[in-house]
């Protein structure tokens, strides 16, 4: 061994240390990647489960309303009134027939926020005045166009659809779950129009979820300050780019979205969920 050169033992020790460090580092990288992939899968499964739960919740919540709408659409008094082309009479009769939907007695039942009729020609029948209660009066005329389009979707075999609309109420868009039901005279077999009922959306405040509609996020559980970032992330993902994350209180959260499969005529809507992408963070529940 020449003077100044490390000894063989030292070289061996250094080489062993380097090998151990390399193997350890590689193992850590592999394990971390595997853990992240596993967690991504878990989060995706959880989101899929939440979407199914959301759909089941919506079905259960709306089942009674949908049945009530179908009964009202067959009501002989309503059919008699809609044939007279008299908005005051029509909304008065409908207000009576829909009383238990507009002012439900059951605890926790959500009252409808509005109801409207759409005539056979596709035009929205304007309520005559405030005496005949028909609920919210949106600020924008575009809302009527959206509603008419939703009703046109009833031209198919299905006599009833549920979708989302966001009319401007008091200067702000308000998300509404809208049930549209075709009205047909069962004796003459003639289509007379449609009934539309709008309900506020229950977005399950205990989860960081919301509804993405028409470029806007509607959620009471995702902080308002994050909405713009979530909207960008959802827009990117719908556009086909890679997955995006949003930081919530410094913790990165993955943004999931899934099309809610709206019926034809309604604008596309997505359920959005935020889940922590760090395996050390418990997903919000």
């Amino acid at each position: 061994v020449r003077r100044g050169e490390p000894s063989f033992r030292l070289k061996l020790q250094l080489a062993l240390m380097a090998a151990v460090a390399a193997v350890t580092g590689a193992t850590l990288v592999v394990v971390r990647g595997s853990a992240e992939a596993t967690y991504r899968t878990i989060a995706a499964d959880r989101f899929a489960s939440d979407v199914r739960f959301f759909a089941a919740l919506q079905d259960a919540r709306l089942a009674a309303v949908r049945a009530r709408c179908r009964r009202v659409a067959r009501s002989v008094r309503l059919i008699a009134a809609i044939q007279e082309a008299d908005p005051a009479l029509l909304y008065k009769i409908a207000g009576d027939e829909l009383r238990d939907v507009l002012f439900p007695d059951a605890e926790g039942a959500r009252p409808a926020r509005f109801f409207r009729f759409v005539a056979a020609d596709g035009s929205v029948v304007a309520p005559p005045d405030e005496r005949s209660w028909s609920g919210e009066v949106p600020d924008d005329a575009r809302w009527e166009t959206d509603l008419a389009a939703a009703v046109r979707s009833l031209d198919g075999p299905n006599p009833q659809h549920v979708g989302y609309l966001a009319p401007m109420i008091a200067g702000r868009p308000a998300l509404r779950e809208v049930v549209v039901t075709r009205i047909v005279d069962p004796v003459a077999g003639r289509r007379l129009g449609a009934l539309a009922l709008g309900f506020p959306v229950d977005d399950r405040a205990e989860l960081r979820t919301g509804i993405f509609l028409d470029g806007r996020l509607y959620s009471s559980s995702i902080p308002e300050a994050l909405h713009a970032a979530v909207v960008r992330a959802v827009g990117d993902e719908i556009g086909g780019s890679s997955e995006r994350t949003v930081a919530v209180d410094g913790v990165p959260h993955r943004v999931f979205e899934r099309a809610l499969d709206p019926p034809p005529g309604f604008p596309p809507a997505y359920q959005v969920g935020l889940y922590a992408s760090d395996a050390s963070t418990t997903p919000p529940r």
Partner: protein
Amino acid sequence: MSAVRTIVGTSLVLLLATIAPAATIEGTIALPHAMAVPAANPRYPISASYTVGPPDPPAAVVYVEGGVPAPAPARAAVAQHRYQFSPGLLAIPRGSVVVFPNLDDEYHSVFSYSKPKRFDLGRYAPEETPAELTFDQPGVVKLFCEIHDHMRGTIVVVDAPYYQKTDPEGRYRIEGVPAGRHAVRAWVDDDTTLERAVDVGDDGTLRVDLP
């Protein structure tokens, strides 16, 4: 005083109409196909004896307007029989009184939201006598029963003494029409009212098929 004038005037017109030359208008109206009987869907529970009869075959109401005297009111009935209005289509002159006897075993609840005559008789049993109604506005009055939503009826109130309901083949014959230029109108259904202007001579028969 004005009432006396009206009565005297109407009487004179009617007298002139009876002694003046008159013609007959006849023809055929194209009628829609008969509707299938829908499945009964009563709003309230019903008894085992509930049997729905067939609705009346399609018919139209033909009437002559323009330059004709005011009609004399009449008295008519629209019964509820075998869970149908009978007749399903009734033509009456303005000012007529109509009764609505219930000939079935159960309650009926007849109402109309039509502008010429809005009414709601409420529920009444066969042994009860609902109110008689005067139809003093011309137009079409659609009849419904709240309990039996398949029941549909129509009363056509005409402002003319010359009118007739067609037979099931659409044939009609209106006699005693005074000479002059008139309009022959036919109410066929909610979407269809046919019309033709005619010049009626002193006598003879004028054929008017619509359309």
